[in-house]
């Protein structure tokens, strides 16, 4: 990293602040504390992490801003949610960071949102119920009538993997794809965390969209993850600095640290796609397929309400 | 020890006038009994004195202090009145032992451990319950619970003692003993005591004064002898004594030794009776003769000469009651109740001569009797 004098001043100021608070809206990821430890070890600045569900996080930030009782310095959340928050005016620009240059060119970013990792969603199948040769290879394979009644899906009418998949596939394959999918009688479930297990237990043959990093959590179970030929649907997670944060310098320092190789590798090991260049050779073999899979696309935050409305129309 | 004064005290429950308009004074250190039929307002009166019920009208004072006066919104809470009370329902605390129940008021007064122990044991001794000190209260029989309630009320030597039928579940033997103990204690400590009972004999035996109530108001407030021998109304006579009431007409009136003497005439009989007041000739009176003062003789000749009035009638009933035998003797319209000795050999259907002497009679002008008869029943 470039050690400009200006940045050194920020490092010093950050150390003087002594602490930084991160609100994380991606509760299912246990890796932020690991990164925080590395950061603490390096700079001696204490990181406090508060895990909150995305909607709770948004509400807390909004309330803190409205009442000027600001506790959060940095937010980690889905890119779409942060986009909305940015529009509410509660985020601050992170300015120039020494390691910005490392970012891959193909990730979406703006002056307030710093991409950290990408999570890919594919298709999960029960390996006992679905023979090797019968596995769907494309998103469109699940429209085959033989899967009728055997598909478990995250509810596409509710925010999260389900709506992201809906928006992306709708944008890429058109309305027809979903009208057909609707006739397959997919069982919608909102208890996302249970779904992979339900497929593993044989309640259903197929589960979409399957968060591929979850394969690591289900190692010995009869479940396989498939990246469709069109590519994975994905969700991108970003960092943002909070407006009027109590520790603005530490916030920027922390954000920059997330772009470091050591931090990024933490997420790579959990089968998430890094947002910086030059890690290709360092991807462990067991997650290589997932991390390097082709990506189909993600949802457009500006269209959230419109997409939900469409989903509700198609899936009564 | 303070006196207790009630001035025009009343208590309404919605539409029900449980206590009407009671004015009475219980002097310092006196033992006064409230006597009256079930539902006449005895418990309510006691509760108002204790501060458990607020009187809706009138003034209650204990000693020099007004404790309740609704017209001035004055009300002293019960715990400030230093009264001991035995509830009609005992109100024994089921989560405590006998000892703890009795110790409760003492501990509230921050007595030392030893003092508490000593006083509790003394009180339990009084009610013959020392052997049960450690027994949980719910495992006692009814009478035992009642005795614990008495011990609790007296253990802390309150300045006013309020007792609501405290002996109703005890047998005669124990009741007699407890009466004596209670009276002795009351006199030793000079506690102003208000006692509610439904037992006339008990009221007579214990009290300095008796207040006879009915339908929420006072009929007579007098010494036991006054109530018994010289009832002011027929109701009092009926309630406090076992008497026969005979209508008669006054023939003449003259002063007697303790009261006036009337010469009266009834159906088939005539004689002299006592009366509180002069009654004009020709007016009606109700003659009252108490069961125990009537003699019943099978042989008219054996009636002694000092008996002033005589009737002849037929025995209708003969009930053995232990120390006495109650005869019902019919004389014309009237059924006389007569107490006889237990071994009496008078049989049902026998003809007997009833007689009574002047000093055992009493009479009340019929006007007063009629007035109290028209009183609406509660």
């Amino acid at each position, binding site marked *: 990293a470039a050690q400009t004098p200006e940045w050194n001043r920020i490092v010093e100021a950050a150390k003087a602040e002594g602490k930084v608070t991160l609100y994380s809206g991606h509760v299912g990821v246990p890796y932020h504390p690991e990164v925080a430890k590395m950061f603490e070890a390096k700079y001696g600045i204490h990181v406090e992490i508060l895990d909150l569900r995305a909607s709770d996080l948004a509400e807390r930030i909004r309330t803190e801003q409205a009442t000027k009782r600001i506790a959060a310095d940095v937010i980690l959340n889905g890119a779409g949610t942060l986009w909305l928050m940015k529009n509410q005016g509660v985020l601050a620009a992170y300015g120039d960071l020494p390691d910005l240059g490392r970012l891959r060119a193909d990730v979406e970013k703006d002056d307030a949102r710093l991409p950290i990792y990408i999570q890919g969603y594919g298709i999960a199948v029960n390996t006992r119920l679905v023979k090797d040769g019968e596995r769907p290879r494309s998103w469109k394979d699940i429209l085959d009538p033989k899967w009728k009644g055997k598909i478990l899906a995250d509810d596409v009418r509710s925010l999260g993997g389900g709506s992201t998949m809906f928006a992306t596939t709708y944008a890429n394959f058109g309305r027809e794809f979903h009208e057909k999918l609707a006739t397959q009688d997919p069982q919608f479930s909102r208890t996302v*965390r249970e779904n992979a297990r339900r497929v593993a237990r044989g309640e259903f043959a197929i589960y979409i969209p399957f968060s591929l990093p979850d394969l690591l959590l289900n190692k010995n179970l009869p479940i396989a993850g498939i990246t469709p030929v069109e590519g994975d649907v994905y969700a991108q997670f970003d960092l943002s600095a909070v407006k009027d944060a109590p520790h603005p310098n530490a916030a920027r320092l922390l954000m920059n640290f997330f772009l470091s190789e050591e931090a990024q590798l933490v997420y790579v090991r959990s089968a998430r796609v890094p947002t910086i260049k030059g890690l290709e050779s360092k991807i462990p073999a067991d997650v290589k397929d997932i991390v390097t899979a082709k990506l189909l696309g993600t949802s457009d935050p500006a269209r959230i309400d419109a997409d939900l409305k469409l989903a509700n129309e198609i899936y009564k | 020890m303070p006196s207790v004064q009630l001035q025009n005290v009343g208590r309404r429950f919605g539409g029900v006038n449980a206590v009407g308009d009671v004015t009475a004074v219980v002097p310092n250190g006196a033992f006064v009994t409230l006597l009256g039929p079930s539902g006449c307002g005895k418990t309510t009166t006691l509760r108002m004195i204790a501060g458990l019920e607020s009187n809706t009208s009138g003034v209650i004072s204990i000693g020099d202090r007004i404790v309740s006066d609704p017209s001035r919104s004055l009300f002293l809470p019960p715990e400030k009145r230093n009264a001991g009370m035995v509830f009609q329902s005992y109100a024994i605390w089921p989560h405590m032992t006998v000892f703890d129940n009795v110790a409760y008021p003492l501990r509230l007064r921050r007595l030392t451990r030893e003092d508490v122990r000593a006083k509790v044991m003394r009180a339990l001794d009084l009610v013959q319950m020392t052997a049960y000190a450690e027994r949980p209260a719910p495992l006692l029989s009814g009478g035992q619970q009642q005795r614990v309630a008495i011990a609790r009320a007296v253990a802390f030597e309150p300045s006013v003692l309020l007792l609501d039928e405290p002996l109703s579940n005890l047998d005669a033997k124990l009741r007699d003993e407890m009466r004596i103990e209670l009276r002795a204690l009351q006199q030793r400590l000079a506690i102003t005591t208000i006692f509610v009972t439904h037992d006339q004999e008990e009221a007579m035996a214990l009290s300095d004064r008796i207040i006879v109530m009915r339908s929420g108001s006072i009929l007579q407030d007098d010494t036991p002898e006054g109530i018994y021998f010289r009832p002011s109304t027929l109701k009092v006579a009926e309630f406090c004594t076992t008497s026969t009431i005979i209508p008669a007409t006054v023939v003449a009136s003259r002063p007697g030794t303790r009261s006036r003497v009337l010469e009266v005439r009834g159906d088939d009989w005539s004689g002299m009776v006592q009366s509180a007041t002069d009654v004009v000739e020709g007016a009606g009176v109700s003659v009252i003769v108490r069961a125990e003062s009537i003699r019943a003789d099978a042989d008219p000749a054996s009636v002694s000469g000092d008996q002033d009035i005589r009737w002849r009638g037929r025995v209708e009933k003969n009930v053995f009651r232990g120390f006495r035998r109650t005869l019902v003797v019919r004389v014309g319209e009237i059924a006389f109740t007569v107490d006889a000795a237990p071994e009496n050999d008078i049989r049902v259907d026998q003809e007997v001569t009833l007689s009574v002497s002047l000093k055992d009679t009493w009479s009340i002008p019929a006007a007063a009797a009629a007035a109290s008869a028209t009183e609406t029943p509660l």
Partner: protein
Amino acid sequence: MLAALTLYPIGTLLYGSLSSAPPGQAGTLDFSGYGALFNAHTLSILAVTIGMSLLKTVLSLIPATILAWLISRTDVPARATLELLIGLPFFIPPILTAMGWAMLGNPTAGSINQVWQALTGATTPIVNVYSYGGVIWHLMQFTVPFAFILLVEAFRSMDPSLEESSRTSGASVFTTFRKITLALMLPALSSIAILSVIGGIEAFESPLFFGSPAGIHVVTTEIYDSINNRATPNYPYATALSFAVIALMALLVAWQWRALRGRSFQTISGKAFAPRPIELQSLRWLAFSFCVLNVLIFTVLPVLQLVVSSFSQYYGFYGWDMLTTSHYHDVLHSDLFWRSTINTATLGVVGATLTMILGSIVAYIVVRTTLPFRHVIDLIAWLPWMMPGMVLGLGFLWGFAVLPHAIGIYGSLWALLLAYLSLGTPLSVRTMSTAFSQLSHDLEESSRVHGASWALTFRKIVVALTMPSFSVGWILTFFMVFRELSASVLLYSVGNEVLPVTVLRLWEEGKAEDVSAVAVLMLAIVVVFRGFHLIMVKRWIASRT
């Protein structure tokens, strides 16, 4: 105090429901949230929710009442153990029992259906938990023990001679139960029924787990959608919906007042009574079987599943090679677990104690005095329970954040404590008012006359006499703190982590097995607590036997 705890957060919500912008931001008066209530969709959701809640209440109260009566008033064998076991499922996190029942009763691979199909050769499943019935069944899982625990105490403090006089009048045990016992238990039963109905309306996990897949939408999922499934959360609608629920529930409470007015239910009289169990004679073992059946279905099944899962590598996948203690290892070696457990326990002890004290005082005022505003107080005490948790959580967040900066409640443990106090008060008020309405007045009066002030009498007589109920209320509120998520997640801060949030984290990380391990540890605490508690109650009663 009560008003500050409940009216304040709810007031901010009311403001939120009427404002075009959320609190803290300038907005204009806006009735669109309420306007949105009046359409067929919302009304049908309200109808479904209330219907479901009523049904599960009725279905739960029947076994709960019978069980409570058997355990507290008859000589069924092994009463003490049964009492402990029947109450246990109340303390299992609903999400875990949901997983359990999903495995047992799903239409394709559920064990019940597989056994059924293997036995009969049928090809259609007999049960499907992803249905209306499934939601109700899962709600019952929680309601039966809840109602049971509260009813046992109510039944216990009843003068047996009231039942005995019915027996000698010619009524059989069951007629007596119906006509006298139940009638005398009306305050308890109706209070518990209302708690249960409201609880059912607020339930989130069951409809989410079993209802959503079947297309059943209820108020809570609707609120969840309106907050979470929009680009901008629609708070006016969410809060307006909550207030509609409150209005309906207030009708229920008013109905209870009417139904009980002017009657007395004093079953502990001044003439002390020994608690004599009813001898069931030949029915004894039948009754015992009934209890055991309940224990098997509602307790053994889920608890066993929980224990096995906590030792399995994967929840629901059993096999000798899958056995592991690593989940316990993980949990017990986690600083966060210990920190949040200690925080939660502290909050639980302080919160439950304060809640019960506050609740007792409120209950006393409502039941025992003739103060003019006591019904208003009663209703206020109900409010936090009537408000769906996720909305009320917002109320607290807004409420505490809007306070002047000098009052540093926001972000401190105090915020959580106050929220728990408010959330626990309805339960404590219900528990205690039921208990108080059974006490005859003369027991207090006799204490007052003998020199104890009102406060002393309250402590030494009223509370002491209702100690079993008080302690049950304490335990229920204590463990409520262990599972309250909606407010916790909005109000906790770093260093103030509480167990529900930690559990949520584990859950979101896909560690259902660790959650099971935590739940088993929690159940162990429950068993110790309840065991100790029941022994205390027994001793308390033994002091009367």
